[in-house]
């Protein structure tokens, strides 16, 4: 099993905050890997919120190829973080040349593009780089998006964090998601490491997705270029999140209705029954069959947690106005926000989506039996 932790805070936090919470929950993960997603960045990136940031791991050769490729496109490096690591990695962590975090200035001709076109081009650039990297084995690209940094590595989370010196000020952020454990059901591959990211949407999941193959087939056949990869069965949760928002134009309240729809009789009793029935039918291939706990982040910095229909995975949300955290276990929450009203901690059950909006003032519980806000 893996462990998840996410925090959203008005005051920027060090990524170590999340790593420490992961460490407290270490009995629940096997320490085989770590993934970090940082957003609403502080430090130097605060000033360049619109600049797309490329996160990944490169060999020396890969970096040279990257530079040529990006320059050909017209991208200029605006800012970069150089992670200098000791010559010998700790046991269990592979030797890498470069952990890259680099903000770019858009090519001139991209500047006046409509947002959708810009997003499409950013996605295409990342996919192209990924493809190039896979061909030569010299680049691994996690994200290429404004105000987003992703770091992933194999090894014990705390060991990796110390090795990469993640406590540095440049990496402080207001939204942090962390997952401990490499995906071990399929091949060990950093592309299988949570959190996953696509066009502003990120998510990480605890648990096996038993309906993975039909869902993968369905997403792959949507004709959308970003729905590729699937080295992990959990990547589909991120893509479904993206699909629900961008293709269907629905909000986070509808996400759980897609992945874990109500039973037919409950739909019949719902105020939006006609809509939900239609959604359940048309999105039938996207129904997950658990056991899964999903924690995700939307482009507007909203964080959420949703459980599968059987609620077989742990998950809790708690905090105080200005700072809320989602964790697999209460001890993780305790480590991150000890000074909170614990009586208000909430463990989402099989109908709930717990949402903390960008204002970070409260946990909103959206129950599937509630009316949906989306009907025009």
């Amino acid at each position, binding site marked *: 099993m893996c462990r998840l932790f996410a925090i959203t805070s008005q005051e920027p936090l060090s990524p170590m905050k999340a790593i420490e919470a992961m460490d407290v929950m270490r009995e629940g993960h096997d320490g085989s890997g770590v993934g970090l997603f940082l957003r609403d960045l502080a430090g130097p990136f605060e000033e360049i919120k619109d600049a797309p940031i490329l996160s990944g791991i490169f060999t020396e050769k890969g970096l040279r190829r990257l530079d040529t490729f990006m320059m050909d496109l017209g991208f200029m490096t605006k800012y970069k973080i150089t992670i200098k690591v000791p010559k010998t990695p700790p046991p269990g962590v592979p030797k890498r040349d470069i952990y890259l975090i680099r903000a770019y200035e858009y090519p001139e001709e991209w500047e006046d593009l409509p947002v959708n076109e810009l997003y499409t081009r950013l996605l295409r650039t990342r996919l192209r780089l990924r493809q190039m990297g896979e061909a030569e084995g010299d680049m691994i690209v996690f994200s290429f998006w404004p105000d987003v940094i992703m770091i992933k590595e194999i090894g014990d989370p705390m060991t990796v964090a110390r090795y990469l010196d993640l406590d540095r000020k440049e990496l402080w952020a207001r939204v942090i998601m962390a997952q401990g454990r490499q995906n071990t059901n399929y091949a060990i591959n950093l592309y299988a490491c949570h959190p996953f990211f696509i066009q502003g949407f990120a998510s990480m999941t605890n648990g096996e997705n*038993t309906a993975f*193959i039909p869902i993968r087939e369905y997403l792959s056949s949507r004709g959308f270029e970003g729905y590729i990869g699937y080295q992990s069965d959990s990547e589909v949760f991120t893509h479904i999140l993206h699909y629900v928002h961008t293709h*269907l134009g629905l909000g986070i309240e509808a996400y759980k209705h897609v992945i874990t729809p109500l039973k*037919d009789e409950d739909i019949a009793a719902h105020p939006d029954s006609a809509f939900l029935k239609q959604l359940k*039918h048309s999105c*039938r*291939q996207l129904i997950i069959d*658990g056991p899964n706990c999903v924690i995700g982040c939307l482009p507007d910095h909203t964080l959420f947690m949703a459980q599968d*229909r*059987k609620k077989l995975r742990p998950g809790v949300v708690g905090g105080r106005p200005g700072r809320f955290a989602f964790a697999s276990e209460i001890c993780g929450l305790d480590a991150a926000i000890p000074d909170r009203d614990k009586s208000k901690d909430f463990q989402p059950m099989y109908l709930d989506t717990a949402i903390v909006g960008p204002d970070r003032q409260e946990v909103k519980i959206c129950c599937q039996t509630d009316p949906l806000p989306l009907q025009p």
Partner: protein
Amino acid sequence: MLPDRPIAPSTLSVKDLSWQILWNRDKCTLCGRCTAVCPVNAIEPGVFRKRNVTASIDPAAPPETRFSLFYGIRQRTDPAYACVGCAMCSLVCPNDAIIPARNDEADKQRFHINRGGQPRRRGGRRNQPAGILDRIKFIRISMLTDPALDAGRHEFELRTLLGRVLPPEQSLKFMKENGWIPPVREIYPLVIGGMSFGALSPNMWEGLQMGVAYLNEELGMPVRICTGEGGCPPRLLRSRFLKYVILQIASGYFGWDEIIHALPEMKEDPCAIEIKYGQGAKPGDGGLLMWHKVNKLIAAIRGVPPGVSLPSPPTHQTKYSIEESVAKMIQSMYMAWGFRVPVYPKISGTSTALAVLNNLTRNPYAAGLAIDGEDGGTGAAYNVSMDHMGHPIATNIRDCYLNLVTIGKQNELPLFAGGGIGKQGNLAANAAALIMLGASGVQTGKYIMQAAAGCIGSESDRCNICNIGRCPKGITSQDPRLYRRLDIEKVAERVVDVFLAFDTELKKIVAPLGRSTSLPIGMSDALGIDDYHAAERLKIKYVI
């Protein structure tokens, strides 16, 4: 026959027949029940003359010859009256004095069942007991990575959809713009396949309908039954139970006069309309209800004169191309019910199924595609069609599903698989395998006849006389003397038993795979088979 008489080519001995009657003179009470019950008159009361020679111990006295008689059972050897192995004689015998036994070598009867130039016709199924479906295993068992579910405790929702399901983006837009989307039914994934009123006896039909109504109304299982081509009794058409019925229209259009006339009086819409273009048991051949079974009632419902054979043409005569055939017919059927009822075609398994499927994907109304594989059953067909024509269902369904995946329409056009599901008794396992290969649901007929009514047909040419209306169990007969044997209530009870048991077994299959809230359609990673080539062909795992 005397040894010096000429023999005809078709003169056979008991040894040449497929089935031999073993009769025990000591046990026989000569009650005559066996000869009365035999559906093919294969046995008759016989008078046997016996010669007894007695030699005296007195050497002067000549040996004495006396003749005596005894009565017993004689098996006829004319191929027209050959025993079919139904064993009704055993069933009725008070002393277990009689039983048919299969010949220990290949019979010679098979070479003589085409006398008069008429090839053998029969009912039943392909006489081939084995099949690929029984070899498929479910191998993705949830172990420590994710807990297996408890089939008895967790909440399950094992339903499927029948109808054209628009893709999510279109569906929402379509509804907003038109206030209408194609009708979709939420049904149980095991459908009772098309067996017509006419092919089945009134008692069998009523029993099935009662069982289905009970499953729906008392147990909340949305089980559906297809009428087959032969119309529907007028009272059912005008009842609320019509919603559990899929009305079939086929190339003979039998019964549709009655249906059309009942339209204004229908209280409920039928579940769906199935347009039959082909049948797995006799692909490329039309329906056939032989004259034996066309009595007054059947004739009235079908709108034909009684006592004539009713062949449906192999194709719909008014159509000449797939485009027209599908589009026109689907559209007319939709219009008849105000676009509230899903309409889908059923074809027999064929290597051209993909062409049909691709055509349907371009038709915005087509509500699904049912494919009936070579192991499907029938009430009457030529033996050659049954035994040698057709396409196995497994690859047909898999190819179609993967084709839908390629074009992204796997949820739009539900595939229903039929033909040989449960032919070895493994109904749930076969159904689950087909669902994981890509079927949205399965249709079964033979299994229901065997389990719910005690049909004694087998995959080894036993009985198989559904075509001549002499079904010894009263399942496929229109003769009241025969069908009154079948207790309607008990049939209904057995239908319910079958579905409840199926439901438990299906849960026992999907729960360990970690599935419960949606039917695992296309979950091919759960399937394995011990045949490398089959695994490659079906794109599932090869396991040994």
